[in-house]
């Protein structure tokens, strides 16, 4: 059955490609809007930013569409977790990197978020708290089972994950640099603390639970020889260690940039 957004289904999984019109629309509209905004504003394309934006759209499309989207919506808890990581740790930061400052200013002004700033510690703590509350709520079995059975619910969950991703990365990658937190060590500490402390709770629960906690995946037709228990353990591991390369990689880049800037400043003195 063709649906506009990926939703859990009782039919056995098949490896035949299935289009999801909503996913294509949600991917292409921002891309065309991005290109049209450049043309309307008479701004030149910055190739690095354009590629980052396109990569972000592709990551969003990959997380939402076939096969990861339908697998995550109704067959595998591990695909559900992979989707979450793709939205929050790949698509969202790439879209922010790809957004030029002038466009960011316009978007924030239109959303009345121009005064949003993550310079102070309090706002960083608030961003981390909202992200983690969203993480816990959106992975609670009651939420997953309530939302993944309906197209609108499934769409809502994916959009919430995208918003969580933007919120997570705005203090570090906002196109409006004044919005970002300034201290490099603050950025590193923020990213590590936000993505790795609270996430241990659900990740450990998934990995070490005696029984599957999501009935939607437990009762789904099995794919290959993966048992519901193995799938859930994999989901826990993805949540636990999937963040490591991206978050630690980003932290390392921030750290080394800061270190080399310091070294340059010292040599000038």
């Amino acid at each position: 059955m063709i649906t506009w957004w990926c939703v859990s289904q009782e039919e056995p999984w098949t490896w035949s490609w299935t289009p999801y019109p909503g996913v294509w629309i949600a991917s292409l509209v921002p891309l065309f809007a991005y290109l049209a905004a450049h043309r309307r504003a008479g701004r030149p394309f910055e190739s690095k930013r354009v590629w980052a934006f396109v990569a972000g759209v592709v990551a969003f499309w990959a997380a939402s569409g076939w096969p990861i989207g339908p697998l995550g919506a109704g067959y595998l808890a591990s695909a559900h977790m992979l989707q979450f990581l793709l939205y929050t740790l790949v698509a969202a930061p790439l879209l922010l990197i790809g957004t030029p400052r002038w466009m960011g200013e316009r978007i924030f002004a239109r959303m009345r978020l121009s005064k949003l700033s993550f310079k102070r510690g309090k706002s960083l703590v608030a961003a981390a708290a909202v992200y983690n509350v969203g993480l816990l709520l959106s992975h609670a079995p009651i939420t997953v089972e309530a939302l993944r059975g309906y197209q609108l619910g499934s769409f809502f969950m994916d959009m919430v994950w995208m918003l969580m991703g933007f919120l997570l990365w705005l203090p570090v990658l906002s196109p409006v640099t004044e919005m970002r937190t300034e201290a490099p060590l603050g950025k590193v500490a923020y990213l590590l603390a936000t993505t790795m402390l609270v996430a241990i709770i659900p990740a450990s629960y998934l990995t070490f639970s005696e029984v599957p906690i999501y009935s939607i995946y437990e009762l789904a037709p099995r794919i290959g020889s993966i048992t519901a228990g193995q799938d859930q353990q994999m989901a826990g591991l993805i949540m636990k260690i999937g963040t490591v390369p991206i978050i630690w990689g980003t932290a390392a880049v921030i750290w080394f940039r800061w270190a080399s800037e310091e070294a340059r400043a010292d040599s000038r003195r």
Partner: protein
Amino acid sequence: MPRRLLLVIVALSLVGGACSGPTSGELTGIVYDEPVAKPSFTLTDLDGEPYDFVAETDGKLTLLFFGYTSCPDICPVHLAQIAEVFDQQPRIAREAEVVFVTVDPERDTPDVMRAWLDRFDSRFVGLTGTVEELDAAQEAAGLALAIREDGGEDYLVGHASQVLAFAPDGLGYSVYPFGTLQSDWLNDLPILVGLTTS
């Protein structure tokens, strides 16, 4: 982090835990008003030998399920759930007999059934017979008869979707419809194993 916020996060994390996990106490399956006797029927096992259900399963925890190997959803999920629970509870698995009776004898040859059951657990017993024998077995178990649906070569078979559980005392106390979770099985199987005649 403000204390109130920390409390919210801890509470939310517990939401996940509170919704699942094995419980203990009463049976979670659909419990009969009065325990029922084991159905009496004799079919053919996958080695071609007669299998007297009552005699072969005497004194054992027995899970009886009618299905077919081409079933797209209910049958493989039921058997996968039971197999996974058995992996976790080998003691119960040793004391239990899972009997899978085909309702599609035309396609479910002994070889096909053995290969399919082995995907879940090689200890699972497969039974077949003539259409009349299989109908009689379903009737004896108090189930609606399976119906072959239209659909050419890849036809579906409508069949009862519940697993019938019989304790070692030979009585059935509960049935398990599709949707039974591993936590339900983990709760109920030890209770049923304990219901012996001694």
